[in-house]
């Protein structure tokens, strides 16, 4: 199963901007975050094909997952 992972802002440091990943079977966004050692506490918006999702979202073939850092100041 191929999915595209897009990282933004500080998450790109030491990782990548866009990456096509292949997985056997099901995978959740939580597992993807663990795989790339992205700290959960810093995660803000998660999009899957442009829709807001949470950590438990399971990815399917050709999904595009975008991971943004938490932004809450003003």
């Amino acid at each position, binding site marked *: 199963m191929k999915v595209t992972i897009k990282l*933004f*802002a*500080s998450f790109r440091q030491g990782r990548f901007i866009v990456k096509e990943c292949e997985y056997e079977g099901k995978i959740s966004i939580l597992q993807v975050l663990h795989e790339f050692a992205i700290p*959960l*506490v810093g*995660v*803000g*918006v*998660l*999009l899957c094909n*442009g829709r*807001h999702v*949470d*950590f438990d979202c399971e990815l399917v073939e050709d999904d595009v997952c*975008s991971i*943004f*850092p*938490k*932004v*809450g*100041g*003003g």
Partner: protein
Amino acid sequence: MLEADLVAFLKTVVVKDNLIPLAAYESAADKFSVTFTKIEEIALVNGFYPMRYQRQRNLIRGRGQLQLLKSRVAVVGCGGLGGHIFEMLVRLGVGNLVVIDPDFFVESNLNRQLLATVATLGRYKVEVARERGEMINPVVAVEVLSQSFQSDRGAQLLSSCDLVFDALDSIPLRLQLADLCSSFEIVLIHGAVAGWYGQVAPVPPASGIMGQIYQNSGLESQNGRVAEEGGNLAPTVNLVAALEVATGLPYLLDDYQKKWSPGCFVDLLVPELELWS
């Protein structure tokens, strides 16, 4: 009749292209015992255009300027985002502004908060905003509240608004503001910053969008204040405030198409803007 007499007066003070200078408002107010707001409303209805909005005339037009004049908009938070949002709304000519913030200026605000100066340290932010509004655009009515938006008076003020801008620095408070705006069926324009990054999204009433935006952001700290964590920069607050105002304006103007834009994330280091779509 007031309107006819006022229109006759305006014709004597108009400069080229039907522009009315602000200096004429004092004379008109004295002569006809009316407010600046009324003068401006009658001027716009009758095809005149306030000179101070000359540069936005082709973009906002008379009908739009009148809509702005009659709009009532709240800015919740008067710090980094709020100060800039407030200033832009004043300059645009939004006729009635409500500014809510219980805080006063401290030294660490000086790096990014428009209304923070050495002279205003220690003063309530909303009081400084009121003065600033008067200096820039005396036609805009500014009502301020130096309490939380969750106070009885805060909720009352918000309930009468056409649009609300999120300029808070706390995630839990943002979620509560979104709930309150939903209960009043008012569109909320969300904005937030962190270091070089920011995000903006319109939050229609009952959409649940604010909850979706922050569903992965555990409420780790008691009040969720995030300014101290990653820090904040002047260019980031400037840009995100401008995006919030640009996102919100179509909701006040019939001539601009209202579509529920999905929101966006900005990274000033690249620089890059990513639409959430």
